[in-house]
């Protein structure tokens, strides 16, 4: 598989691991946060932490849009199908997330709600065209990777005057979430910064470019390396971060140059600016309220807003008291430090955000790494 297999060379992986071990100063600890849930998954699925020296620690960040999706918004999606009889189209990722009363979209579907799994927002547009007498709602979740496709779908719906299509918009923004993490991070012993570097998301950066991260590098004196999605990309990125720390640099470097440019995808960025507007605030599951961190539909597209069309109101649903997801999403705690982890809270019966998605820190740790301590 071109552009995939070449980045999975096991011999090269060992070589890069040796370089990391040689470069890492044994007198100090290196703490790098991989922001993106996809990267958490890459680390876990390939067992990459086994290849790292003990003093290089990966802290798992909140970049998992399913993990941070507020329970109240899943309730809204369910309401649209159950109470209003609409066809609710969703990516499979959200189907098993438990919402209010332990109900999930999957369970609601079993009870008769018309909830359908789609692979693209255009599938929802197609369903709307094929079912002119039904309302079709697309449950739009995801960071900036997934937002442009929703924008295209809305644009098409507007241009073709598709009356029975609407979007329940829950798109969130990466730079705002990163800022929040850095803002609320505690200090370590000796007043050391909580994080020594950030692994920048791969495909979000394809869209937004590498430029937006410059502010973090400057303001927080934080090395940032944008990282591709394959195991060799991750190992190379970690090496680049170690080198930045050793050399006292705090720059934005791009390891994923084959797909990420400084300016990103201008067509996508312009389209998103046209179709969406910034919400003042958004209640992230596990992180609390974060200002200017999420998107709603712009006035010219307001007619496609499912919240308005169906009079949906978001109720803030607090997480279980035992849940340590907030601390885990911010990287302050490890999954095994949560009392509920692996006992009351498992992928089969998740209590909190970090366990609900397969790339949440707790789910990844449980499924791939709970035997390695």
């Amino acid at each position: 598989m071109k552009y995939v297999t070449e980045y999975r060379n096991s011999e090269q992986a060992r070589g890069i691991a040796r370089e990391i071990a040689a470069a890492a100063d044994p007198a100090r600890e290196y703490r790098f946060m991989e922001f993106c849930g996809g990267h958490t998954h890459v680390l876990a699925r390939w067992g990459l932490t086994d290849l790292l020296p003990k003093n290089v620690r990966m802290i798992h960040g909140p970049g998992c849009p399913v993990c941070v999706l507020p329970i109240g918004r899943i309730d809204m999606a369910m309401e649209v199908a159950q109470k209003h009889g609409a066809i609710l189209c969703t990516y499979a990722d959200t189907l098993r997330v438990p919402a209010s009363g332990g109900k999930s979209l999957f369970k609601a579907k079993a009870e008769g709600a018309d909830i359908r799994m789609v692979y693209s927002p255009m599938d929802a547009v197609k369903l709307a065209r094929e079912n002119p007498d039904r309302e079709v709602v697309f449950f739009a979740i995801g960071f900036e990777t997934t937002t442009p496709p929703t924008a295209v779908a809305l644009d098409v719906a507007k241009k073709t005057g598709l009356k029975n299509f609407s979007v329940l918009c829950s798109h969130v923004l990466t730079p705002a979430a990163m800022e929040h993490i850095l803002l609320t991070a505690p200090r370590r012993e000796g007043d050391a910064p909580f994080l020594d570097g950030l692994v920048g998301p791969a495909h979000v950066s394809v869209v937004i470019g590498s430029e937006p991260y410059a502010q973090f590098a400057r303001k927080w004196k934080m090395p940032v390396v944008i990282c591709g999605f394959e195991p060799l990309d991750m190992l190379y990125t970690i090496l680049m971060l170690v080198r930045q720390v050793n050399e006292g640099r705090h720059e934005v470097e791009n390891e994923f140059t084959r797909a990420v440019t400084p300016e990103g995808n201008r067509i996508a960025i312009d389209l998103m600016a046209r179709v969406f507007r910034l919400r003042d605030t958004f209640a992230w599951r596990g992180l609390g309220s974060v200002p200017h961190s999420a998107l709603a539909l712009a006035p010219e597209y307001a007619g496609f807003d499912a919240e308005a069309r169906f009079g949906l109101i978001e109720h803030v649903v607090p997480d279980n008291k035992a849940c340590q997801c907030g601390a885990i999403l911010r990287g302050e705690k490890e999954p095994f430090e949560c009392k509920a982890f692996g006992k009351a809270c498992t992928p089969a019966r998740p209590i909190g955000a970090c366990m609900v998605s397969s790339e949440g820190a707790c789910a990844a740790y449980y499924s791939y790494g709970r035997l390695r301590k």
Partner: protein
Amino acid sequence: MCLAVPGKIVTVSSAEEALADLGGIQKTINVSLIDHPQPGDWVVVHVGFALQKIDEEQAQKTLRELAALGESAACEEPAA
């Protein structure tokens, strides 16, 4: 961040649609977000959309850097 796979554009049917080959799987993808998509272009595909062209030159450069690192003679084994 999210799951995306590389694909090669086979034919472009309109400004919006193209047929891509994703490692042997033929799939219709939306190319509205790509500037002048051409047959033969490699793109990153996510939820049925091409998000960006893949720069072959940069890809080769990265592979060369990885290979050079991979042949590292550093003798320290990572701590077990």
